[in-house]
């Protein structure tokens, strides 16, 4: 049992050293696997902002994850094929510059999150779950029926997108790109959680009427954080597309939304670093249980069942001293 701060620090150190373990064990796949863990952790941190801290059970975060992936894929596809994207009278050649792709991803996911959030936040509870799911499913079916970008087969990228002076095709370099984004995400979300916006979000989760009575519009607070959450998850989707050099409708499916939610719950809601542990255990379970039995998801379900019954704060609660108390700041 250690303090939460120490555990968080250890998690970051461990992740930082992953490429070293990978080199020592002479297995570069470990680095690629951990790139996936880090990317899913970023998506999870994005979801946890609204799920754990805001009480908004979004079952449609695959919409942002997938959009991030498709923005990345489509921009690179047009750039690689020398076929400009035509929007009315404008033409855009596409790009393979990651910095530019990330900016586009953040803009498009924010716009989508505004749109989905604006309508979804008029509802609550089970209706909110259903409406977020419905939006994601709309995008999923749209992507399937869009032959320009591969339809059901998806879209392959011949190379990863580029950053000047870095070889993104090198697994270790790409891992550290993801790692830096993880750190940036943690800093941003931590800052938000300790700001009046984040505190209002946590207060809105407890009681919206009470929040209104102190002069705050909880809908506005929730919408702003929903947009931030969508943007973060979108960015994770962009990194995921580059990691696999492939995007397909699968990353827009409800299973993807479920995966992101499961890793948040598994790691521990209300904890900033919970989704990192969640992503780690989820992928490790997938890899190792998947190697032993085809029914690994049955055992995952069993583990989640135990967790929900006995440790609501997730894996984090087993490892740290302070127990479940919906801790607010991390």
């Amino acid at each position, binding site marked *: 049992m250690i303090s939460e701060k120490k555990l968080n620090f250890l998690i970051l150190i461990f992740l930082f050293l992953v490429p070293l373990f990978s080199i020592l064990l002479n297995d570069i796949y470990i680095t690629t696997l951990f790139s996936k863990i880090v990317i899913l952790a970023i998506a999870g941190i994005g979801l946890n902002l609204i799920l754990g801290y805001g009480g908004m059970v979004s079952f449609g975060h695959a919409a942002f994850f997938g959009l991030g992936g498709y923005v990345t894929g489509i921009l690179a596809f047009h750039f690689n094929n020398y076929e400009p994207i035509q929007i009315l009278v404008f033409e855009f050649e596409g790009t393979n510059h990651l910095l530019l792709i990330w900016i586009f991803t953040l803009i498009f996911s924010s716009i989508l999150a505004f749109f989905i959030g604006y309508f979804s936040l008029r509802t609550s509870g089970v209706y909110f779950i259903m409406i977020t799911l419905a939006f994601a499913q709309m995008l999923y079916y749209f992507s399937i029926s869009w032959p320009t970008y591969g339809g059901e087969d998806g879209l392959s990228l011949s190379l990863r997108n580029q950053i000047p002076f870095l070889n993104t095709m090198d697994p270790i370099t790409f891992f550290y790109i993801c790692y830096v984004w993880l750190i940036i995400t943690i800093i941003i979300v931590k800052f938000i959680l300790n700001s009046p916006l984040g505190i209002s979000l946590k207060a809105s989760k*407890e009681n919206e009427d*009470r929040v209104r009575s102190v002069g705050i519009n909880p809908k506005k607070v929730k919408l702003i954080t929903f947009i931030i959450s969508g943007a973060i998850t979108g960015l994770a989707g962009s990194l995921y597309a580059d990691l696999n050099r492939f995007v397909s409708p699968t990353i827009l499916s409800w299973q993807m939304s479920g995966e992101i939610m499961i890793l948040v719950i598994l790691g521990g809601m209300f904890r900033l670093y919970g989704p990192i542990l969640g992503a780690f255990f989820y992928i490790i379970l997938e890899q190792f249980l998947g190697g032993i039995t085809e029914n690994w998801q049955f055992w995952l379900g069993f583990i989640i069942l135990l967790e929900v019954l006995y440790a609501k704060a997730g894996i984090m609660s087993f490892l740290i001293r302070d127990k479940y108390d*919906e801790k607010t*700041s991390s």
Partner: protein
Amino acid sequence: MSILLRIDKLSAWYGDTRVLNEVDIEIKEGEIVALLGRNGMGKTTTLHSVCGIIEKVSGKIFFKNNLISNLPSYEISKLGIGLVPEGRRIFSNLTVEENLIVASRKGYWDLNKIKKIFPRLSERLTQMSNSLSGGEQQMLAIARTLMTNPKMLILDEATEGLSPNIRNEIWTIISEIKKKDVSIILVDKYLNKIKQIADKLYILDRGENAWNGKPYLLTDQIVKKYLSV
């Protein structure tokens, strides 16, 4: 002293049931006004109507000459009306400090002044607010509302269920707040204390104005008729 709040023929309904019937109330700047009446006579409903919490109301409510009866509750709060609701409604998933800063707006009351007036809270800033005692939670509810720097504070049963010591502490705090030119409407059961502290009393009976006047005009006969159980 100019009029800060004017309630003009306020009626309110819960579903089809009318619970307030053309209630009139006026509060001047810097005044403490107490709403009295037996349980279920419409005191809390009146306060909630002012704060925009009751959905179905008619009549007009003016605050600083602005019509506020159609505004959402968060806009009313922003104009300078701060409600301390009945039953210590703090944000229990936040720390004491977070409860205070969540709603803070610029003005006389800031964290330092709150710490001075509520020393009990200043010692517990980093504690989760649900770990406070009942009296401390009530103080936190008042302090949180003060941090919004209201021009008018509404205290609904602020001393209910508290020990005599804590109750006296809260009465002292209310007097301190009054000195800072904050008007106060309060609902409370301790008539003797109210008579000492309030500038004006309104008695509600079955959702209607029954009597109003200065505290010294409140006779035993009126008390017996409208307030005795």
